[in-house]
């Protein structure tokens, strides 16, 4: 949870000052390979699976950071010259934007076994797909004991499932969900959204549910809302649900039909000091043997085909990339969102503020 303190003028000034001093202090000595990921339980897993073993293998320390995603952060780092991170885990949109803007180094695909060894959408010139994760409906199996919701139409059905609902507070995922709730075929969601009428239709559908909606921003929030009963169902990150079920024995459920999946990738920031070591690090993490151990820690799917095949069945059923789950899900349309994110976010903020 960085960047979330109150932004007082003085505080900001001091922060800039401190950063400037820190920069001046460290510029003289070489920085060790620095990897930034999204924190939480997944970064704990990455530490065990990749960070520590890689540092041991190379005999050099590996620094880790965590961040909350956001293209502006990376762009500012590269723009300032000499970014202080080398390898970063990014979301699909950041990958597409940054690759077009040239803020990432091109990857050496010979070291990674070629782009063909990845699922479609998992490999690009700048990014190597690391995990596949889903946004899906989640609910507490101890509270809804009968048949649970089967898709977004049930999410909107407050008579069948009385109670508040929570959704991620971004226009992305909210509009898709609304259209699917309104009866649009999952495969046609983005065709409909591409028209102004489709966007109006999605907002109109959101209007229906607005009185019963709570919005969340951090991925841990919906879990506690579901557990306390503040909401009856919520959009969730699938990995968090499975993780909580394993660690605390809860009975939270993921609804796979009409879930939406996206790929997180490793990138190397342009001009990074340890770009070469970064490339070796990426190749190290992406070897099928190592990558295939991720589901033991967090239920994320794997974009490397050979790695996905090595996951034992009892773990594979909880992954977004399991054939039964993948079949009923839709991929997030990154091109649509890079084009429309800003305009639709403004409208979403205006809508939500009313």
């Amino acid at each position: 949870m960085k960047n979330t303190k109150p932004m007082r003028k003085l505080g900001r000034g001091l922060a800039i000052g401190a950063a400037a001093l820190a920069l001046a202090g460290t510029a003289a000595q070489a920085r060790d390979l620095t990897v930034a990921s999204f924190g939480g339980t997944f970064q704990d897993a990455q530490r065990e699976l990749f960070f520590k073993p890689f540092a041991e293998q190379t005999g050099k320390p590996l620094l880790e950071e965590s961040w909350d995603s956001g293209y502006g952060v990376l762009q500012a780092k590269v723009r300032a010259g000499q970014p202080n991170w080398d390898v970063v885990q990014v979301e699909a949109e950041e990958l597409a934007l940054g690759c077009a803007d040239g803020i990432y180094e091109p990857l050496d695909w010979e070291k990674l076994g070629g782009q063909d060894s990845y699922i479609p959408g998992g490999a690009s010139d700048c990014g190597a797909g690391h995990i596949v994760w889903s946004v899906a409906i989640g609910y507490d199996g101890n509270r809804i004991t009968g048949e649970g919701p089967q898709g977004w139409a049930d999410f909107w059905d407050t008579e069948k499932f009385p109670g508040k609902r929570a959704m991620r507070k971004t226009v992305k995922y909210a509009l898709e969900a609304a259209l699917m709730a309104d009866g649009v075929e999952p495969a046609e969601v983005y065709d409909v959204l591409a028209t102004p009428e489709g966007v109006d239709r999605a907002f109109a559908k959101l209007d229906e549910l607005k009185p019963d909606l709570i919005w969340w921003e951090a991925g841990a929030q919906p879990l506690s809302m579901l557990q306390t009963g503040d909401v009856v169902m919520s959009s969730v990150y699938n990995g968090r649900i499975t993780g909580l079920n394993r660690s605390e024995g809860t009975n939270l459920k993921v609804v796979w039909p009409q879930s939406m999946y996206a790929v997180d990738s490793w990138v190397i920031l342009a001009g990074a000091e340890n770009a070469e070591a970064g490339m070796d690090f990426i190749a190290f993490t992406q070897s099928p043997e190592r990558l295939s151990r991720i589901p033991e820690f967090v239920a994320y799917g794997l974009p490397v085909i050979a790695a996905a095949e090595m996951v034992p069945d009892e773990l594979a059923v909880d992954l977004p990339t399991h054939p039964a789950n993948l079949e009923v899900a839709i991929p997030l349309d990154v091109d649509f969102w890079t084009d429309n994110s800003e305009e639709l976010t403004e409208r979403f903020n205006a809508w939500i503020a009313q």
Partner: protein
Amino acid sequence: MNRLSRPRAFLLMSPLLLFLGLFFVWPLVSVIWQAVSDPAISRVLPRTAAEIGGWGGEGVPSDEVQAAFREDIVANTDDMAMGDVTRRLNSSQSGFRSLMGKTVREVRETPDIALIEIDDRWGETAFWKAIQDNASPYTDAFLLSALDLQRAGSGEIEAMPAGSSANRTIILRTLWISAIVTLCCLLIGLPYAMIAASVTGWKRAVMIAAVLLPLWTSLLVRTAAWMIILQESGIINQVLMGIGIISDPLVLIYNRAGVVIAMTHVLLPFMVLPIYSVLLTVPGNLMSAAASLGAHPVRAFLRVLLPLSLRGMISGMLLVFMSSIGYYITPALVGGASDQMISSVIAFYATQSANWSMAAALGLILLVLTLLLYALYNRLSRDPVPTR
């Protein structure tokens, strides 16, 4: 002061001046600059920017303009600068992201390809209009759109279509929430500070520690604690339902009440401490003197103690108000959708969409509003404040 000592005094002052310049003036100037400058297109597409001025805004621009546009794309070697152009254009007209990516690729391969063959969108007026609108290196578009305004085709300022932006609502809400929080802090902080100043020994130590301790805890932890206390199955609801005052849980979280409660708690020290320190300087026998002159305790309080603590109240109110207009994480965690404050919008532009100009413009508007309020406040509060 003689001539010799002046440079010396200046030298002594220089660390302070340097500090002010580096951490106050320079960031402020760069924010203002960022909010009004729009150099991307005129810098990366100079030929296009020069040619497109002559286009009347009907249909699509002439072949010369289109040729200049292709030349500019071929001549540019800086992908990051082109990224700025794309981001800027996409911000005016959704769809430029994919369009520019495709166009740059194709034009680099075949420099004299007709643009319309690359994508049908080059036949639409709106896309060319976006280039024309942004060709000037300076713009008021960000400042206008921070206030939900835009320039019409004829150049006149007009309101944005309803429902497309809500910055004005959110700015007003930010000021409103801040005012309520300030008032709540004052209502709790003033009596608290008075009691703390009037007791002595361990009682005073405990009361001051109770104010200071939360200051040493992370803001996030304090906010999270309020989430636990306020939620539907939280302590407050359990107690109230346990003793039978209410039968259904009160909704205390994810709404305005939750935001005000949590922010009041977080900011209370900034109200208590200034009032407390002012009250400490008030001689303890003043109230008894007033009483001995026949004043009723209420009258003595209103005429003696309250005016004397006014300076502390004013600095406390300013501190609380100024801090709360920048609040971000507390409203996000304990507030509902209609309690979000302007910082969250600024954060979206800065960290998510990398639209620094829009973030700067919103920040600038907030700063100007605050300064205006401060000036107003200063004027209103000048007379009753005892000045020495």
